[in-house]
Structure formats: C-alpha cells, structure tokens
C-alpha cells in the first residue's frame, strides 16, 4: 500500500465498503421479499462504513492531493459507470416489456414496486462497482 496514491487508496476503501455491504445484501435478499427498510439500512451502512474507511485512509496518508491524472481517471470511471447504468436500464426495460407482454407479472402494486426497487437499486450498485473497478484498473495500469 506504500506506493499507492491517496486517490487509489480511497478507491480500494470504497471497493471494500461496497463489497462488504452490497454482497451480503444481494446474496441474502436474492429470493426473499425486499423492503424499503432493508434498502435504507444498506444505504445507511455504506455511508457509515465509507466515512470510517475514508477517515482512516486520510489519517494514514501524508500526500492527500488530486492532480490532472486523477481527474482523468475519475472521468473514465464515471463514463464506464454511466455506460453500465444506461445498458442495464435498456436491458431492464426490455425485460419488463418482454415479461409484461407474456403476462408474467402478477398485477399487484406492492410486489411490482418492491421488484422495481430491488432491480433499480441493483443497477445502481453494479454501476457504482464498475466505476470503482475501472478507476482501480486505470491506476494499476498507470492510467
């Protein structure tokens, strides 16, 4: 970790937080009924864990600066994240149309609402992880 810049350490911290919080959430809730409270709890957990990890990383890093290369890598990450989110949205809408046309969804407002909550939250999480991983790969490849 000694040769890593502050930005890269921060990204590793984010990835650890994302995997620690999101992985159990999706594994445990894969075939169970989801709820607003579970999503809110997950978001709260990731915020708290991020604050703790980022504070530790900031405390142990001497040079906490951001330069032009960091900003370029950040942009690449956000581009990858956006493309992932847009692709998943198109895929999701396509699947919704497909299942709706076959009459697979039971017309039950609560069920459909929670289903969408889970799917869209999942899309956001996947996009966020893709963004973070893209940035880490760029740092590891020197760009």
């Amino acid at each position: 970790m000694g040769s890593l810049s502050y930005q890269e350490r921060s990204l590793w911290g984010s990835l650890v937080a994302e995997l620690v919080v999101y992985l159990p959430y999706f594994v445990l809730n894969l075939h169970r009924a989801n709820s607003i409270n579970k999503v809110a709890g997950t978001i709260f957990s990731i915020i708290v864990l991020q604050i703790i990890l980022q504070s530790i990383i900031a405390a142990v890093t001497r040079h906490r600066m951001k330069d032009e290369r960091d900003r370029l890598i950040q942009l690449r990450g956000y581009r990858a994240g956006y493309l992932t989110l847009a692709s998943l949205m198109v895929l999701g809408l396509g699947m919704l149309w497909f299942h709706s046309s076959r009459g697979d969804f039971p017309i039950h407002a609560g069920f459909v609402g929670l289903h969408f909550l889970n799917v869209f939250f999942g899309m956001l999480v996947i996009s966020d992880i893709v963004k973070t991983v893209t940035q880490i790969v760029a740092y590891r490849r020197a760009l």
Partner: protein
Amino acid sequence: MPGLRNTIRELRAERGMTQQELADAIGVTRQTVIAIELDKYSPSLETAFKIARVFGVALEQVFQYEGRRK
C-alpha cells in the same frame, strides 16, 4: 501507448532529484511522475512546461513526439 517520449528520468538523475521532489515542484503526485516517466501518461501542456521549467531546459529537450505507437 502515447507517442510521446521523455528524458525526465535522465534529467532527474543529472540533478539528483527524486520523483517526489519533482512531483512537489510541479504539483502532481509521485505516481503521476512515474506514469509520465514510463510513457504511460501524456501530461497536460501546462504540466509539461512546468517540468521543463524545473529542469531549466526547453520543452523539446524533455519531450519528443514520435508519432502514434501501438
């Protein structure tokens, strides 16, 4: 890979300057200096001029454009 070659490592060695000292002088991280030295990253024009100014040489003595390489 960018088609930009540079002599930063040699210029640094001549002056006994570390990567961290150069990074501090031009306002970037040491990792960015490493990436530039390895020709993995082409710096902005502003940073390129700053590097040349730190070494007290012309820009062409630090960076040479060799066209696009694979």
